[in-house]
């Protein structure tokens, strides 16, 4: 099975440095404080935020709790592969939780709690990158202050070519892969996950490509956030200044 054709095209016709079709929809889930739907190729993820709200009677240890759920309809394989993906999702949700804890200012979390729930609707590779993007967009849509806007991207080295945004088929190979959650303003990496053995030069190349991928994703995410805010602003009131709200 040849993953990169001589002309440099991948199985689904994309070039190595090309992301899959990205679709973002904010605020589509009623009954939540904030929500975000992210679709990258066939991977579809929906995230919802509940809070910040009064912590229930027992004050929990960390104020942000993140749950990533994989359901039977979202997995291609059989029951065993669903359980395996579910375990990986729980493990990744821990990494995502403490990344979010650093992103949200401490005073918000002092005596309130935020629940970030992510549901994987369809898993076709690059799952955890999509989950991280959806969770952060949902937080922003809920009006939760964030220190920085960040995006996540998944890259791999197949047949000595660095590919961005791997599909399930591409990520099934035992090739070196790297996924990062990248903070764009401070240009720092919040989460990094690598799979399979790779040389340090390969790692650098993958991180380089992943950063480019994140920057491209962030512009799309920023655009979605801005247009959603502009729409809400223009419907709620043509006048915007707070003073007028106090008449």
């Amino acid at each position, binding site marked *: 099975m040849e993953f990169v054709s001589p002309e440099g095209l991948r199985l689904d016709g994309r070039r190595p440095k090309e992301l899959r079709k990205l679709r973002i929809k904010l605020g589509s889930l*009623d009954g939540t404080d904030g929500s975000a739907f992210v679709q990258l190729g066939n991977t579809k993820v929906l995230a919802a935020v509940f809070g910040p709200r009064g912590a229930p009677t027992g004050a929990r240890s960390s104020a942000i709790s993140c749950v990533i759920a994989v*359901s*039977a*309809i*979202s997995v291609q394989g059989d029951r065993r592969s669903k359980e395996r993906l579910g375990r990986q999702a729980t493990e990744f949700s821990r990494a995502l939780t403490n990344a979010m804890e650093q992103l949200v200012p401490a005073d918000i979390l002092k005596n309130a709690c935020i629940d970030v*729930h992510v549901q994987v*609707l369809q898993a076709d590779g690059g799952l955890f990158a999509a989950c991280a993007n959806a969770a952060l967009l949902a937080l922003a849509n809920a009006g939760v202050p964030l220190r920085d806007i960040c995006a996540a991207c998944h890259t791999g080295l197949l047949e000595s070519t660095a590919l961005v945004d791997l599909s399930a088929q591409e990520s099934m190979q035992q090739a070196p892969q790297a996924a990062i959650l990248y903070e764009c303003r401070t240009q720092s990496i919040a989460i990094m996950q690598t799979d399979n053995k790779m040389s340090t030069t390969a790692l650098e190349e993958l991180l380089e490509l992943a950063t480019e991928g994140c920057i491209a994703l962030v512009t799309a995410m920023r655009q979605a956030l801005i247009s959603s805010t502009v729409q809400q602003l223009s419907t709620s009131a043509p006048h915007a200044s707070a003073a007028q709200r106090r008449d």
Partner: protein
Amino acid sequence: MLSQHERHYIQQGMAQNVRNDGRTCEHYRPLKLEVGVLNMTSGSARVKLGGTEVVVGVKVDIATPSPDAPDAGLAYYDVEISPLAGPEYLGYAGSELGASLAQRLARSMQAGSDGRGGAVDLTALGIIKGKTCWAMYVDALVIRVDGNVLDAVSIAAKAALADTKLPSISVTEAEGEDDEPELEVDDDPSASVRLETPSVPCIVTVSQAGRSYVVDLCEEEEQCVDASLHIAVTAQGSLRGITKQGSSGIDLGSLQEMLGIAQRVGPKLIQVVDQHIASGAATAQEED
């Protein structure tokens, strides 16, 4: 969580046939139904009934038939409550609700032990008598709970089953009698086989509040009714599966009245669902 006064106001409204959102007692909330939303499943559907939102996916695998029904396939029903429905559905409460919904959905589709008489004719799922058959997994995922979840799940299941495309299978007979006949699966969609779903029922939940009988309750109204009956009704109006819920008894007269309402409302609901399925299938583009 409602106050006693809101509960009284809602019950009085039901008695006057004017509910909080202006509907009459036998009026359904707006229904949005799309088919083929998950392209990695054999069949899928997404339903929004008022605020309640459900996605159902149907997957098929190869399995060995049960000894009691060698020529029939197998069907499994499961309902999961997504964490998107809210933190209160994580853990025990969510799995409890999911398990009871799955049992009621299965009861409405249940076939006899010989695989016949079910909502979906399981004999159509048999491949080689006694050796191999299709196992059909109907999995529902509840994304938002806003009352009347079981009806939304059953509508989505009916639509997903109508959308299901079974890959066509050609069985090449084995020459020697010891080796197995090979199965050759051709998953090109144009050659796929559709299931017979006209006799698949829709569940109509009829609830009793005082002397009034109400259909399609939203979440607040569900806290104001005494008892409810989940009644699966087929297009012809016959009853397929019933379960009672709620903590007060139903007198016999009301029981007959509620069955009558379900048999009147059910076929109309199925007509609306079938129209959506027909039009939904035509516009099943990638929009989510």
